[in-house]
């Protein structure tokens, strides 16, 4: 709360700094802004940055380091009995002291030594917070005065403000990149812990997936088998079914939209198709599980086929519907980008519309279309909700689309749903699966984007 108020005050001071800087800059040149190197508003921003930025940086640094310092002071100040404790007990004790200091519930009895430690910890935190506010405000005001003093007619305020903005933008993009790297690293390290227990070859080439491990030593039949082939096969099967639905429908609708449809139809039909992409996947999921799967089962029964009520076919078909817009929208865009002169060239040689599309436009747009298909595939591989609901959990190694199969994403969900211990092979397997999924979709995306870019270079 105090931090929030402090930030608001700092912002307010910066606003004040902006107006002070602006009026000061006009004043130093005797009211003739044309003699300034930079516009008055840049001088205002210059002072505002001097006021707000150092103070903000200090406050952030304080918020990061102050708890660390307080904790180390607490560690030096522990009750004497802590000397003999193990690591686990020590960390429990520290947590207790912190909870006590904040007025939360603690584990066990509160003895006077604990109370004393908590009081001193609370005191340190209080002092720290007050010091932060004082220092922050002082630096803001100093910055305000200092920045205002620096203003003179030849000050290159614009260049300096723009340099600061540049740095801010670089930091923002770095944060995004670092987050990605962090995710990849955490996946990687957890996956390595998994591979320390289960050999990589067994994971990649094993034919049996049964991730239950024994909780008690005497339990039967739960030794765990981590062969991921059935999952890869299930993912592949569902992806193939999905693409078998999405590729023809998407491509034909794209060809219709870009070449045959009049502007009126197009302006209506294209957004309608794109609505498909806006339906939440969980809705597709229960559509697949409650409508499509029973329909396939009944249809199968009526012609004497036994169809599982959770089938790869149902999940794949619905997923195919979901990714139609990815295929159609992207293909439509690339075909529209094929220059009109190529169409004219073909027409002028006496080609009919369908010959022109088949032999000129489609080949010219092919790289872009392939890129769109690859993006759709990577979307299908990573899709979770539909398969969780409609594809089933049984890790069958089968190519029969009428049976239940399971996918990588489904297994990750089931491995991590509910209360789990996070150091068993079972939960760590989720990270290994996640890593595989990440590598596959990343490489598909890289290939797809490269293909699309190559195509773009050709016509822009």
């Amino acid at each position, binding site marked *: 709360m105090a931090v929030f108020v402090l930030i608001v005050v700092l912002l307010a001071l910066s606003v004040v700094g902006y107006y002070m800087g602006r009026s000061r800059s006009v004043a130093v040149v005797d009211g003739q802004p044309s003699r300034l190197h930079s516009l008055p508003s840049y001088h205002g921003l210059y002072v505002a940055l001097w006021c707000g930025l150092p103070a903000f940086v200090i406050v952030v640094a304080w918020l990061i380091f102050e708890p660390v310092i307080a904790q180390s002071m607490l560690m030096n100040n522990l009750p004497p009995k802590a000397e003999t404790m193990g690591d686990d007990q020590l960390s429990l004790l520290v947590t207790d002291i912190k909870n006590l200091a904040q007025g939360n519930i603690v584990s066990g009895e509160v003895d006077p030594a604990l109370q004393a430690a908590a009081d001193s910890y609370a005191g340190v935190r209080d002092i720290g917070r007050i010091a932060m506010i004082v220092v922050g405000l002082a630096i803001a005001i100093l910055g305000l005065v200092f920045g205002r003093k620096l203003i003179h007619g030849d000050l290159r305020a614009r260049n300096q403000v723009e340099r600061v903005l540049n740095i801010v933008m670089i930091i923002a993009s770095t944060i995004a990149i670092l987050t990605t790297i962090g995710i990849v690293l955490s996946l990687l390290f957890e996956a390595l812990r998994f591979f320390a227990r289960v050999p990589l070859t067994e994971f990649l080439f094993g034919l049996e997936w049964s991730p239950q491990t024994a909780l008690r030593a005497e339990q039967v039949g739960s030794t765990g088998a981590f062969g991921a082939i059935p999952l890869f096969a299930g993912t592949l099967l569902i992806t193939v079914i999905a693409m078998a639905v999405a590729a023809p429908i998407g491509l034909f609708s794209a060809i219709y939209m870009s070449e045959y449809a*009049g*502007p009126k139809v197009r302006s209506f039909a294209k957004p309608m198709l794109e609505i498909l992409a806006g339906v939440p996947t969980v809705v597709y999921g229960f559509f697949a599980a409650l409508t499509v799967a029973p329909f396939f089962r009944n249809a199968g029964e009526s012609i004497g086929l036994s169809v599982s009520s959770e089938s790869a076919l149902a999940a794949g078909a619905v997923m195919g519907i979901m990714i139609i817009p990815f295929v159609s929208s992207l293909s439509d865009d690339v075909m529209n980008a094929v220059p009109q002169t190529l169409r004219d*060239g073909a027409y002028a040689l*006496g080609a009919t519309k369908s010959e022109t599309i088949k032999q000129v436009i489609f080949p010219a747009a092919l790289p872009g279309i392939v890129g769109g298909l690859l993006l759709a595939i990577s979307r299908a591989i990573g899709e979770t909700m539909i398969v969780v609901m409609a594809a089933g959990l049984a890790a069958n190694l089968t190519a029969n689309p009428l049976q239940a199969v399971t996918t990588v994403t489904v297994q990750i969900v089931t491995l991590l749903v509910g209360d789990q211990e996070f150091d068993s092979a079972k939960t760590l397997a989720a990270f290994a699966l996640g890593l595989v999924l990440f590598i596959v979709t990343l490489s598909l995306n890289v290939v797809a984007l490269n293909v699309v870019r190559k195509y773009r270079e*050709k016509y822009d």
Partner: protein
Amino acid sequence: MAAVEQLQSDAARDTKVRSRDVNVYYGEIHALKHVDLDIYANEVTSLIGPSGCGKSTYLRCLNRMNDVIDGCRVTGEIALDGDDIYDKSLDVVQLRARVGMVFQKPNPFPKSLFDNIAYGPRIHGLGTHKDELDEIVQSSLERAGLWNEVKDRLDKPGTGLSGGQQQRLCIARAIAVNPEVILMDEPCSALDPIATAKIEELIDELRTNFTIVIVTHSMQQAARVSQRTAFFHLGILVEVNETEQIFTNPSDERTQGYITGRFG
């Protein structure tokens, strides 16, 4: 009418394309007004005039390329060898096999050189065997003066050639289906002077076998390559005559104004 008088004096010439009272509307806009024009066989006819005067619109009527444009309407009569090309029974595909076209910007297909040339013959079923196609490709490239430059790389994409070569490739592609008339819509406007000179030379050679109609912005080009010149202004065919006559002694003062550079 000047055009009619001209017609009588040129009775000996063979009329390839006969246009009478041709009007073109783009939606509400009346882009081409009552054009009567005869194009004679084995001659180069150039269409000149300021931008937006309707010369390209007229050109695109001759192979019905205006059909592709939404809201475009053509009235009047255009006859190729006496057959009305806007007749319902006429197949536009056959018309375009007889009337080829070369565009302002070279537009080779993103296919190999060979497939670019063979495209037209294939869709019209002219060459079914590989050797027949080979022969058509070679002779078309030779007639377009491109054979020696590209004979070793017929499997390379047509888009990899220089601008001038691409345009000659497009001309070769057009003559591969053996048309009777070739329409050229400012074929040199995207090319440098050397490539332009080559194309102009080519146009002059092609005249022996084809009837050529060329739209150009360059009056020097019209004077160099064409036997007859038609001057369009504001959708009206102002004057058509022997090229020499038009450039030395135009009968209409608008033509006079345009060729001397007073407007346009």
